[in-house]
Structures are given as C-alpha cells and as structure tokens.
C-alpha cells in the first residue's frame, strides 16, 4: 500500500514534468485553430508550423551554426579540461593545489560579471559575427576540469606507470588509458557542455548581428519574441521543438554514462 502511494506521487511528479514538454510537441503539430487547447490529441495533425518556420527564417543555417559551435566547444572542453584534469590529478609540480583552487574560484564568478569585459575583448580581437567569437569563451570550463580531476585521481598510478614503461608519453597515457577509462566523465562533461552551448542565447545575442551567423536559440528567440512568428503559438513551439530535439536525442543515447558520471563524481568529490 505504502509503495502504491509512493508510486502515485512519483507518477504525479513525472506527469508534472513531462506534460509541458508533450504539450509543446502536440501543439507544434496541431493546426492553428486547436493550438489553444490543453489536450495532447489533435484530430487534424499537420506539419504546417514547421514548414512556416523553414519558409520564414534560415533555420537550416542556424541549426548548422549551432551544431558547429556546440560540437567544437564540446570537443575543445573535453580535450583541454581532460588535459588540465590529468595534470592536476597525476603530475607533480609546484603550485598545483593553488592552481586548482584558482580554477575552482572561476566557477564561483557569475557569468554576467565577465560578460562586458569578454565582449570588449572579442570586439578588440575582431571576432564578432564569427565562429571564433561564439566558440572561444567556452573552450574550457572549471566544472569540466573539476570532473576530470576527480575522475583521474581514482585511476591507479600503476596504470600510468605501466603505460609509461610500455612506451607511452603523457599524451599517449591520456588518450590510450585515461580517456577510455573515464568514459562516464567524458559523456557527462560532453553533455553538460553541449547542452549549455546549444542553449546559450545571451552570448550569441551580444556577439552576432549577422543572421547567417546566428545560432538556433538566438534565431528562435528573435523569431518568437521579435514578432516574425506572427504570434502563432504553434509556429513558436515548433521552433522550440527543433531546438530541444538534438539535446533530448543526445541525452537519451548517453543517459546511462551521464548518470554514472554524475554519481561517480559525487562520490569521489
């Protein structure tokens, strides 16, 4: 009985979370006349909202930009954060702990605080309206370094030494031993970074004016808020669906590693 009640509560919570998402998906395929209804069912499903988006804005280009920016940022974060994490976990050098504390400190500074100086820097470098301007600020993250450091600390030194005896250099050890063994951490950092980069609106709004360089969330925000959608809720939600779909797909594919990574990091940390 107790279990049944618990399951009912959990079910109610799950519905609360999932319903808005399902409703968004449903409205995106409903005709405009049915859009206001709270029902998830449509008697006349249509892809008209989607075709409207593709007609009105260069959403394909934005999707492409978002993919380039999020993928490059993710690859870069995985590479640089794992390098830093490896050094902080396994190499001995003067100031190692202080350096780690400084990196932790960067996580405590709110992003809004560095927004203006960062913008000035990007303008001075002439990187506005370019991939460099979109990608460079997110190429390494304190959280990524922290997760990799904690994961690598738990890998026995003897594996590293064995690899060294067998002829590996430091990069070889990282690529051949540490990356495969830290798969959950790689997936966790990868998904978090990809998601953050994919969802980022504020930064692209600041550094990109050219429509051809806009990312998906930026373009969809401007499309919805800027009035191009003509106040049609179905079109706005279809645009939002296009935005969340890649993240949902990626998450469901890597879910197992993601949860494992978060759990492991929690324990070790």
């Amino acid at each position, binding site marked *: 009985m107790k279990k049944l009640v618990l399951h009912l509560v959990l079910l109610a919570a799950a519905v609360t979370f999932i319903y808005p998402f399902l409703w968004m998906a449903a409205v995106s395929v409903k005709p405009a006349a049915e859009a206001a209804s709270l029902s998830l069912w449509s008697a006349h499903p249509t892809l008209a909202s989607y075709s409207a988006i593709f007609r009105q804005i260069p959403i394909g280009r934005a999707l492409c930009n978002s993919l380039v920016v999020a993928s490059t940022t993710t690859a870069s974060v995985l590479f640089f954060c794992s390098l830093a994490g490896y050094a902080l976990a396994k190499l001995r050098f003067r100031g190692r702990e202080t350096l780690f504390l400084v990196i932790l400190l960067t996580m405590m500074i709110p992003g809004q605080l560095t927004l203006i100086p960062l913008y000035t820097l990007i303008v001075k470098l002439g990187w506005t309206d370019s991939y460099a301007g979109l990608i460079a600020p997110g190429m390494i993250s304190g959280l990524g370094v922290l997760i990799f450091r904690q994961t690598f600390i738990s890998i026995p030194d*003897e*594996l590293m030494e*064995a*690899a060294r*005896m*067998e002829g590996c250099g430091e990069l070889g050890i990282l690529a051949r*031993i540490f990356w*495969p*063994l830290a798969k959950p951490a790689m997936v966790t950092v990868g998904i978090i970074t990809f998601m953050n980069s994919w969802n980022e609106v504020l930064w692209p709004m600041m550094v990109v004016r050219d429509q051809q360089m806009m990312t998906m969330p930026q373009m969809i925000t401007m499309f919805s808020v800027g009035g191009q959608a003509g106040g049609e809720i179905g079109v706005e939600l279809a645009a939002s669906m296009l935005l969340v779909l890649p993240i949902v797909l990626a998450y469901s594919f890597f879910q197992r590693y993601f949860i494992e990574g978060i759990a492991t990091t929690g324990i070790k940390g």
Partner: protein
Amino acid sequence: MAKVVLDRIVKHYPGNDRCTVPELNLTIEDGEFLVLVGPSGCGKSTILRMIAGLIDATSGRVSLDGRDITGLPPKDRDISMVFQNYALFPHLTVYDNIAFGLKIRGAERSEIARRVNEAAELLDLKKVLDKKPRELSGGQRQRVALGRAIVRQPKVFLFDEPLSNLDAKLRTQMRAELAKLHRRLKATAIYVTHDQSEAMTLADRVVVLHAGAVAQCDTPLEIYSRPKNTFVAAFMGSPAMNLFDAVPIAQGGTMLLKARDLLIEPPADIVRLLRARKDEKYTLGIRPEQIYLADRKPAELRFGPVLDCEIELAESLGDEVCLHCDAGGLRFLATHKHDFAVKAGDRLSLVFAVDKLRIFDSAGDALA
C-alpha cells in the same frame, strides 16, 4: 649482454629527514636473477623504480650494458616491469594488453600477432586472449602482466612484489612458473619482495636491504647459513635465527661464551678472533633447526652442553614442530621433525650445534 650497474645511487625525497637510499652500489650481471628483499620501507621499491626510470635518483648513475640510462625516460630504457597489482589496462582485452607496448612502438601487425601468440602459448593464455582482465582469475592476470613484460623482449625485467596479491597456493605455483620462465628466457631480472621464501627460491643472488643500504648481498644459501650481521640473521629464515646476548669468559686457556646459564665453547677459529678483539659483549645466533633433541643428535656435529628446557608452546606445522623453549630464562625457538609427541609444559633436553653458531660483535657484525 644486459648488465645493470648502480653506481653511488642516492634517493632523498624532499621533506624527509633521512635518505630513502643513502648510497647504493650494485652490479647485476647479465642473465642474473637478483632479488631485493627487506622489510617495508627499506627502499627496495624505490631502487626498482629508479632503475625503471619512474622516479629520478637524487644523485648517482644507472647504466645498462655500459650505457648511462640515468636521465632517460622509462620508454627509452629497454626495461619491462611487472607491478604488484598487475596494472593491466581494464578496458583492453588480454591480447591488446600484451600487444600494448608493441603497438606503441609501431611494430608490424603480423609481427605483433606472432609475438603475442608466442607469449600466450608460453604462459598458457591462448584461450583467454579475447577476454577482459576483470574476467580472469588472479593467476591469469599475473600471467597477462608477465606476457606484457616478455613480449617486447626487453634487456631487463623488473618485478615489484608480483606475487603478493595471490593466495598461498597460487603464489607457490606462480613462483615455480617464474623460475622456469627465467631459465628459458635467460634475461636479467631484478625482483623485489618482502617474502623471504620467494627470495630464497628464485634468486641467484639475494640483496638484503636495511634502511636503503645493502645489509648483505650473497647467494640465498650463504645468506641463510652465514648471515653477515644480526639484521640479516633476524630477517632471513622463518622462524628467525635465535639471537642471545653473550659475554666472553676466559677459562683454562680457552675462551667460552656465556649466555645466561649456557656456556658455549666456540670453534677454534672463532676463539682466535675473540682473543684478538677483546669485546665485552657478543651476540650468539643459531637457527632453530640447529637445535637438536639431546638423545637424537647426529654424530658428525659438535654440540654444547645439554639444556633442560620447558616447552612453552609446541606449534605443529604438520611434518615439523616449532618448539618455544625456555631454559632457565634463555628463551629460543627450535624446530624438529614432528615424529614425537610434545605439548606445552613438557620438559625436553636440547643441545645446540656449536659449529653452526654465528657470533656477532657488539655492532652486530658477524665475526667470520
């Protein structure tokens, strides 16, 4: 040829009061199986790691076949190492673990396959080549670690307590396999252990280490029967050598050594040394198996006076019994074939084989 020379090697970890390895000179001959043995913290693994290149020596020189390898990274030393915890790569199959070094060195695929298969054949790993390390037993894992070490055909093998994680039965089995493997490969091997039975059974020469310094370097038999100092005497052998404080007494033209009520007349050569030295105090050492039942002593040995002992404890080891004896306050261990009934509280008459006694001066060094 693979001769390893350690020339005045010193290791001092920053922040430590004393040197882990004060100054070590050691030559390991080509094809020799050298075992470094000593208690925890005596610096044996540090020495091995300095030879491997995993840690740098504070000063001194390591050379391999006359080539100075002191500053070289591990990969350029042509040395393999087997680790205590096997250090197998958990994400790779047995085949890939063994082939790892060859792949890194860019060997041909066919050459890798040939050598890995050879090693697998030698180590009886053919059937598990596709498995991951977690699917293997302790003994198999150890053999994979050996396979990874031999497949590169290095000049020198280093073993860092490779059998210490195995159970007693498997350890004995693997020990025999290691000995056979060494006879086959005839490669130079340096083996670290704190297990003296491994040291005694595997080594051509044993180096007993004490606080980073060589306490004795000799053949296993010599170390066992003629320890150079009280540290080696007490460390090697199980049960350990009995050691007693003794004072010299001149009596009727000869010299006797007195340990409590026991008066021993040492062999003539020792007497000569005792006369020359004139120390006030000595240490007598005798192995437990050199103490005999008075009524069963062999005729060919010379014995001291009969000691009336109380047995405090009799530990049966199956074929052997270890007796904890007390002869008027002189306490010692004696081992004997367990072919008679004995229990705690019994009284036995025992004698020491005088010719087998080791006598150490007040600094703990053997007289001869």
